[in-house]
């Protein structure tokens, strides 16, 4: 007893960072842990492809002499009507799909956190007004707004990003506001105020860091929903189109020949599904780990 107490005193516990702690907890949730590595792999694929690393023998021009062949040893996912190797195209398409997911989450973070922080910290009339704005923005179906915006800004990558960013920030804003409303009543905020810190410093240094867990969880769910929205928009012909290449445009091209060549729709869809599923499972896990409102890890 005394011995163990002594050793404990002699070797003070190493300060464990919050990230390391969260990761250790995540490891205990098998589905989320697997999902984490799948997400890493898919992101690595997109990054390597963007960096010009050939991940498939047909990485550069994707062109082969085989038109519309079914999946085989030579072409694991078959080829399309121009003889392009689908595996190479799916890898190439991952760049845009993944980038769209992350950029949208970034926009949602910046816009949503700023808006929510102002609303939550100021409170009162400003809060009511700002939240009414969110209510109205929320009451319109995302796809409806995205279609209208997409037509306005243009159908290219920028247009899609703009539209996705514009419909994705409201959830984060509401969340940040709710967190801040609660946190700003805490004693440490009062202490900071008494020490003469201004509102901006209090929000940035004291409030937001404490609200980070739920924000990260929300952002983890923003990435897959952006990927889904992009592919859906591209699929119905209102998103990206050639020469742009994402999993959504590949699926859209494949839909036209579903009857004869199902692989053209199947493989891009499989990648969309796997990616979105992994992000969702990771988000579920992170929520259990990071969000104090869930009670999986009491105390």
């Amino acid at each position, binding site marked *: 007893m005394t011995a163990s107490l002594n050793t404990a005193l002699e070797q003070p516990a190493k300060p464990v960072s919050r990230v390391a702690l969260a990761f250790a907890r995540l490891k205990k949730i098998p589905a989320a842990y697997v999902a984490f590595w799948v997400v890493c792999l898919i992101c690595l694929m997109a990054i390597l492809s963007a960096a010009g690393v050939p991940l498939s023998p047909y990485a550069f021009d994707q062109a082969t002499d085989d038109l519309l062949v079914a999946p085989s040893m030579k072409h694991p996912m078959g080829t399309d009507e121009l003889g392009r190797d689908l595996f190479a195209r799916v890898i190439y398409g991952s760049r845009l799909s993944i980038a769209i997911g992350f950029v949208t989450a970034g926009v949602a973070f910046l816009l949503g956190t700023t808006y929510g922080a102002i609303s939550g910290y100021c409170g009162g009339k400003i809060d009511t007004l700002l939240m009414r704005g969110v209510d109205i923005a929320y*009451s319109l179906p995302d796809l409806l707004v995205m279609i209208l*915006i997409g037509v*306005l800004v243009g159908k290219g990558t920028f247009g899609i990003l703009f539209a996705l960013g514009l419909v994705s920030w409201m959830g984060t804003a509401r969340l940040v506001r709710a967190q801040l409303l609660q946190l700003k009543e805490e004693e440490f905020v009062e202490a900071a105020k008494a020490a003469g810190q201004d509102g901006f410093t209090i929000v940035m240094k004291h409030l937001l860091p404490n609200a980070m867990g739920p924000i990260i969880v929300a952002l983890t769910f923003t990435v897959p929903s952006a990927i889904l929205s992009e592919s859906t928009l591209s699929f119905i012909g209102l998103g990206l189109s050639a020469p742009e290449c994402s999993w959504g445009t590949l699926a859209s091209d494949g839909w036209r020949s579903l009857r004869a060549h199902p692989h053209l729709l199947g493989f891009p869809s499989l990648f969309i599904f796997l990616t979105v599923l992994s992000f969702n499972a990771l988000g579920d896990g992170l929520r259990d780990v990071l969000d104090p409102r869930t009670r999986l890890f009491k105390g």
Partner: protein
Amino acid sequence: MLALILKRLLTAVPVLLVVATLTFFLMRMVPGGPFDADKNLPPAIVANLNAKYQLDKPVAEQYVIYLTRLAKGDLGISYKYVNRTVLDILSEAMPVSLQLGSAALLLAVIIGVPLGTLAAVKRGTWLDVAAMFLSTAGISVPGFVTGAFLIFIFGIWLKILPVALWESPAHMILPALTLAFSPAAYLARLTRASVLEILEKDWVRTARSKGLSHWSTVMKHTLRNALVPVVTVLGPLTAILITGSFVVEYLYAIPGMGRFFVTAVTNRDYDLIMGTTLIFAALLIVTNAIVDVAYQILDPRMKVEG
């Protein structure tokens, strides 16, 4: 209760006005007009067409003209579907979309709520794991993939169900299933979380210690309370169903509102875009009002402030 409903209806008017205004100006900021895509129209004819439909006037003036017409209940005419008013088109398309939407909503509730309840009650068992995997997968599948999969299995491979158009009840099966898939998964996840929370409450323990069976505790004491959050999502769920129907109507060539909206946007069919958007917004407002009323029925303690 009546006062609540009235209040909701009154606030609907300004919200619809905001939606109408936003959509109107957004639409007009888009380059291109309704007659640009027509084949080789001489400029003089385009000018005449624009004049006929008052599209040559300043946008602000057109906005006033539109609102005045709207106040009289005139939704305008379509520039693309010759000799058809927006009201004509919508009154044909709306029942189709409503049928599809309500069939899907029903399916989603019938599948989602029991699945979620079962998963919660059997927490930690393989049933729970399977149900949760299925529902996480369900919210991760794009609608077009579900649709294509069902079309491939039942239409192309087994050849037992029609895969396009909207003519008989058999035509409804695949589209409704496609549309219901994601919302069912969403509802299952939500119901599970909610039932789990309620199962920990004191009164559930009391009911159990009174000697009530496990299932009758769940059915009588838990579900009613657990359904409150489920009803709350009815609003967002309607939004999911509406946006989902864009894809489903596209996949199955169903002449519903979603399809008209998508083509109207690409055609710059101004009045039709406005009409469809307003109907969608109204639909959302109505479901949100229903949610508020349903709250009070499920949990009379809840006082909703208009």
